[in-house]
């Protein structure tokens, strides 16, 4: 009889119907401004940022492949969306970690500051997602990001100051920012949240495709915003916003 009991227990456990909790750890996530660097663009400009801030909500962390059944059970209250192809439907990996909340990040003034604490189930992580937010005060009011700096044309040294006020659509998610970390119960350290002005995997700049000289005269300030009445500046704004909203220019890394 006892053998039958153990067989039954083993069958149930191995079947995946078991309800064991997956091990989890907590890691601090900090602002990492180390990749806000002068970047060369495809049109021959060197762009250096003096201001780089953004608002974001609810960071989610995803593991490679299918999460273990116990992860799903433990995360039943989290956003585990199926892989449906439909505008707006999540198409990344399995969500296995989270850092809920609203975060205002200043990569240059607050480098190293703690954003929050992520809860991560053990697993082999590959990416992170978050939702672009909107500021509620100061010059970020109603805006997702403010990027300011100087673009210098390499061929003749002409310089163009610029301020970009980026407004993302409400609820716009970013899916697939690289987050390459194997998390075990022994994992320690912090996670750095980076803006990468140069795509770390491809030869691309955040400011590719923007011809600053076609938008202003030498030394003038260019204001990239959705409210501009200059069609060329507006087109450049949309280009910058599109690039900013891709996973090419964000990265989360383990900092030991």
């Amino acid at each position, binding site marked *: 009889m006892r053998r039958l*009991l153990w067989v*039954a227990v083993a*069958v149930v456990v191995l079947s995946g*119907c078991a309800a064991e909790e997956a091990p989890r750890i907590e890691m601090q996530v900090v602002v990492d401004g180390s990749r806000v660097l002068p970047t060369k663009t495809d049109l021959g400009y060197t762009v250096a940022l003096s201001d780089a801030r953004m608002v974001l909500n609810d960071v989610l962390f995803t593991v490679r492949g299918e999460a273990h059944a116990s992860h799903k059970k433990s995360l039943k209250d989290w956003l585990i969306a*199926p892989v*449906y192809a439909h*505008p*707006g439907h999540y198409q990344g990996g399995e969500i296995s970690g989270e850092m809920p909340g609203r975060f205002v990040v200043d990569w240059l003034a607050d480098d190293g500051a703690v954003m929050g604490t992520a809860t991560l189930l053990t697993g082999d992580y590959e990416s992170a997602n978050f939702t672009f937010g909107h500021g509620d005060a100061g010059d970020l009011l109603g805006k997702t990001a403010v990027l300011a700096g100087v673009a210098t044309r390499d061929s003749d040294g002409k310089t163009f100051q610029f301020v970009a006020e980026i407004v993302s659509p409400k609820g*716009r998610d970013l899916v697939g920012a690289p987050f390459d970390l194997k998390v075990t119960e022994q994992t320690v350290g912090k996670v750095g949240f980076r803006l990468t002005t140069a795509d770390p995997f491809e030869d691309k700049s955040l400011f590719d495709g923007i011809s600053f000289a076609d938008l202003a005269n030498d030394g003038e300030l260019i204001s990239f915003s959705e409210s501009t009445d200059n069609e060329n500046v507006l087109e450049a704004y949309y280009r910058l916003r599109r690039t900013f909203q891709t996973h090419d220019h964000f990265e989360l890394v383990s900092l030991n």
Partner: protein
Amino acid sequence: MRDSSNVSRRIALGLLVGFVACTTVACGDDDDKDGNVNVTAYGEDFIEKGIPAADVDDGWEINFSSFIVTFQDVKVGDKKFGGPKAVELAKESDGKGFPVARLEDVDGGEHKNPEYVISGITVQGSASKNDVKKTFDWAFTDKVKYSECDAKVDVKDDDSASLQLTIHADHLFGDSLVSEDPKLLFGPLAAADADEDGVITITELKDAGIGAYDPGNKDIKNLWDFVRAQAENIGHVNGEGHCKSEKQ
């Protein structure tokens, strides 16, 4: 005092019963008799009657004179219709849609995750706003597989089982590939008519930038590629049932 072997037996039987229930509910009932599945395609009112201006965020009214979708590899359970079969959806069907295939001798019981492939779409129509009218005649040749569709097909021996391949034409006109709630716009497509002859050609769309449209992580730089990407998401099942879509 209770007999410990009795308690153990009850626990063991309970666990086994639970396990059996856990597995068989997901797998269906082998005792059901085989049956047939009638597969139809339906473009809903948006394709059959047009998209009213009130449903388009910038006020254009969109009508289709032809909306032909070519289906193939429609699969329910272990039965498949190879096809291909081209179906004209821009005709009135009184909500019934149009036949695509009849899958015969499908195993009885409940089948989840049907799948199918769209191997071509040709769309002809016009859009109007105020006194301006633009026509279009576009062909999408990308082959897209729709799998893991969110539908259950309950096969019985009375020929009543059905699966509707639902086409959402409005997805062609969204302003975002990633938003849960994209705006429906036609203005940017109308503005792509560079020679202003009233016909929006594929060449003109290829020459037009995407402006405020949001392609997400995709490297899309012109309107034609944007609309093509939208066309990869028009397939659904049984109305609003979503599928995983994958370009082949």
